[in-house]
């Protein structure tokens, strides 16, 4: 059956009562994920802490997207464990997180209705809130435009705004700026940095080394389903410890 949960608790103001227990730190222990006998994630141990922007980098097929899907509970691990704030993944942890997929999924409605939909889910819908959120990403002038009429950059800004409208503690971004022009990339980076400054933990996948240098606080470098390196951004870019990371940063093909 469709995998969902029902928001049952509401406060006296009508807003959904969210689980206030912190979801960070996140502990990943001996995580494995296999599909048809092929290992995608290979015995990963990882700890994610509050604040900061964690950039996940690595060549195609390294397992970056699968990793964030596992962390968000969209996929179930073959073995190993993920614990958010000491708890296994459950709907309450997922409601404290938001995810922006590489290909924006827009409801076949107007721009403002896309925001209103998630606000209504969290029982805090109001025209003023929608207006404020759209304004924060520079889309208030397009409020009544059908969402699927937006350009690539505008679509991605809308899905990030929609993700942030749920007021998450943590935001996953799976290559949100792939194939966008520099102006759109800058607009999205500004939105992400402003969310990070508000204390939202960001987990960001990118292939763009320049973008990683601009945004990252820490970097996780993945290769063939393993975490090859996890370090502070400055250390990663100045003195990468692994050969794969050095090759990747130097622009050499990493196979």
């Amino acid at each position, binding site marked *: 059956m*469709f995998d969902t949960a*029902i928001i049952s608790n509401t406060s006296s103001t009508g807003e959904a009562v969210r689980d206030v227990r912190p979801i960070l730190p996140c502990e990943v222990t001996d995580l494995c994920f296999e599909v048809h006998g092929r290992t995608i994630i290979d015995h990963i141990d990882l700890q994610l802490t509050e604040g900061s922007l964690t950039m996940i980098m690595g060549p195609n097929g390294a397992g970056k997207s699968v990793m964030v899907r596992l962390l968000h509970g969209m996929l179930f691990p073959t073995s190993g464990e993920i614990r958010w704030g000491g708890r296994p993944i459950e709907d309450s942890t997922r*409601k404290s997180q938001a*995810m922006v997929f590489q290909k924006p*999924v827009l409801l*076949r409605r107007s721009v403002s209705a896309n925001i209103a939909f998630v606000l209504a889910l969290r029982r805090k819908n109001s025209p003023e809130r929608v207006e404020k959120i759209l304004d924060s990403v520079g889309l208030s002038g397009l409020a009544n435009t*059908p969402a699927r009429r937006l350009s690539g950059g505008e679509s991605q800004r809308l899905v990030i705004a929609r993700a942030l409208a*749920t007021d998450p503690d943590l935001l996953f971004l799976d290559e949100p700026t792939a194939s966008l022009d520099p102006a759109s990339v800058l607009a999205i980076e500004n939105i992400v940095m402003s969310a990070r400054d508000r204390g939202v933990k960001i987990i960001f996948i990118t292939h763009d080394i320049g973008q990683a240098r601009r945004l990252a606080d820490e970097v996780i470098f993945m290769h063939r389903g393993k975490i090859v390196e996890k370090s502070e951004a400055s250390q990663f870019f100045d003195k990468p410890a692994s050969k794969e990371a050095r090759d990747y940063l130097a622009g050499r093909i990493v196979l």
Partner: protein
Amino acid sequence: MQDFGEAFRLAFHLVWSANPDLIEIIGLSLQVSLSAMVISCLIGLPTGAILGISRFRSRNAVIIILNAMMGLPPVVVGLCVYLMLSRAGPMGWLGLLYSPTAMIIAQSILITPIVAALSRQVIEDLHTEYAEQFRSLCVPVGTAIGALLWDARYSLLTVALAGFGRAVAEVGAVIIVGGNIEHLTRVMTTAIALETSKGDLSLALALGMVLLAIALAVNAAVMGFRMTAVRNAYV
């Protein structure tokens, strides 16, 4: 047997002069088939949506049966409803046989599988697009179904009109359960069948023209909705 030219002339005259008998028959046809369409949508759309987004063991078997039921023969549906509603039948006490209600029931049974099967396909396609995002947002099942039905509204309107087209054009079910009683259960298709067998081609032709006009109008409406949807990028 009337002269064809004369029959056409009379038919046009009947339509042009808004002949009361003709209007009554058209009115009842629309009332019966539109009611059947509404009922079949109330049942078929949620059924299609639930089937479109659920995964259970015998799902494929249910879909095959539902698709097969799209081709239900109207006379068989008419016969089954007749057996249910006849005096000796389990629902005979309702006294509905040979009434417009019986015709609505028969047509609803006929087109509900069409609405359910077509909407299942529409909803399933849209759900494929939305599923991951909805899971990420923890969207409750009821809200997901509502959102899918709303976002697929233009395609589903086409589905509803396809059901209406099937209902308004069928004769087998309504003639069995309605009985083609003048001023009570006579609809366009049953009247055409009767008048043709009597050799009174003018009324039959007039009704045939109206029926064709309705079919054209329904298709034009479908095209109009689709164009609006495409213009707004909603499909």
